[in-house]
């Protein structure tokens, strides 16, 4: 059974999808990823889809699901490197992927994740200080 590797990098999880996703693979990825988020208490998930040339409505929903589930577990999701054709397809399908952050490349995606987590940490810190 094929499996998409999930890499842990400090606070983040990295997923690079290098094959065309089929339904079962995507469902496995969803559950694996959520388990990993729980296991490592990650605060950010970065999914690189630069090598994916086809995304259908199911795959769009899976991406949305991952974002929502991660959000519940207090992790932000960033999708990076989406190809123009894929973006156009998703829009034509009426799937603007709400709740998913996007970035042009991995570098910018990491910066985005860092700034988001930084903000959250600052918020909690200020919250803590105010309660004290």
């Amino acid at each position, binding site marked *: 059974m094929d499996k998409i590797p999930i890499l842990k990098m400090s606070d983040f999880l990295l997923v690079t999808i290098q094959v065309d996703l089929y339904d079962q693979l995507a469902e496995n990825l969803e559950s694996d990823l959520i388990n990993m988020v729980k296991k490592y208490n990650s605060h950010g998930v970065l999914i690189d889809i630069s090598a994916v040339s086809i995304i259908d409505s199911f795959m769009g929903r899976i991406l949305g699901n991952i974002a929502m589930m991660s959000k519940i577990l207090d992790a932000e999701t960033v999708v990076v490197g*989406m*190809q*123009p054709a894929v*973006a156009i397809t*998703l*829009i034509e399908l009426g799937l603007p992927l709400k709740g998913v952050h*996007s970035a*042009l*490349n991995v570098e910018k995606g990491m910066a985005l994740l860092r700034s988001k987590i930084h903000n959250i940490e600052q918020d909690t810190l200020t919250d803590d200080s105010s309660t004290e």
Partner: protein
Amino acid sequence: MSTKNEAVKALQKRKKEVLEQWMKNQLQDEGLRNNLISDEDQQQTSDELLNLLIDALNDSSIEDAHSRDFEKVLDVLSGISISRAKQGFSPRETGVYIFGLKEALLTTLQKDIKDPAQLYSESLKLSKLLDNFAISSFETFIKGREEVILRQTDEITEISTPVIHVWDGVLAMPIIGTLDSARTQIVMENLLQEIVETGSSIAILDISGVPAVDSLVAQHLIKTVSATRLMGAECIISGIRPEIAQTVVHLGIDLSTIITKATLASALKTAFSMLQLEVTKKSKSNLLQQSNR
């Protein structure tokens, strides 16, 4: 009647005469412009066409213009029509060219066939055949013209959607002309492709050249903006004229999710502040220092 059709025989015998007559007919026509094609070229193509036609003529094919024997003739004919369409000949000139051949064939036929009844029936067959050729040549002529028009349309759409690199990480795309579905597709593709290639995080879509925005155009704009956001870039729409703002509100289109600016300048300003850049005026003392150096 002999085994071979009289007309066919006569024409095969007098091929040279037909060609001469045909060339004479062409030169007689006052509307003919010889600056578009040289006489030698003309003679050569005419000769080729005539040879093929006479070779293809036989007892059965003379009565059926759609006979397989004429495939080559039609090929050459359509080649001539298309090249004439591209060279800018008028349809009349191409028509005169084909009908000149008909006239030449009939005149030659007159010399050989003396029996009026036979001459009449053969002439009828021959003119029917040539008329068919003329029609098919018109068809290909128009097809040739249409190809030219299609190519120009493609060129216009290609030209009218340039992507401009305004600043590091900022792209601008002025849209000129009506936005229909086909053009939106091209605009979207060009913009997204350029975003990927340059790694720009902000795109400005300037619609000051769009004459009117209806619900469909607005829909297209919203789609483009959503697609850019999906890619991880931000999209600003600028150049919205007061009339456009009025129609958009009257039509009840919600553009509140999109960053809209009145002018390209203010869009650029917004882009700078998003990128945390600042444009400052050089102070006078700095300028003096630089000039002293």
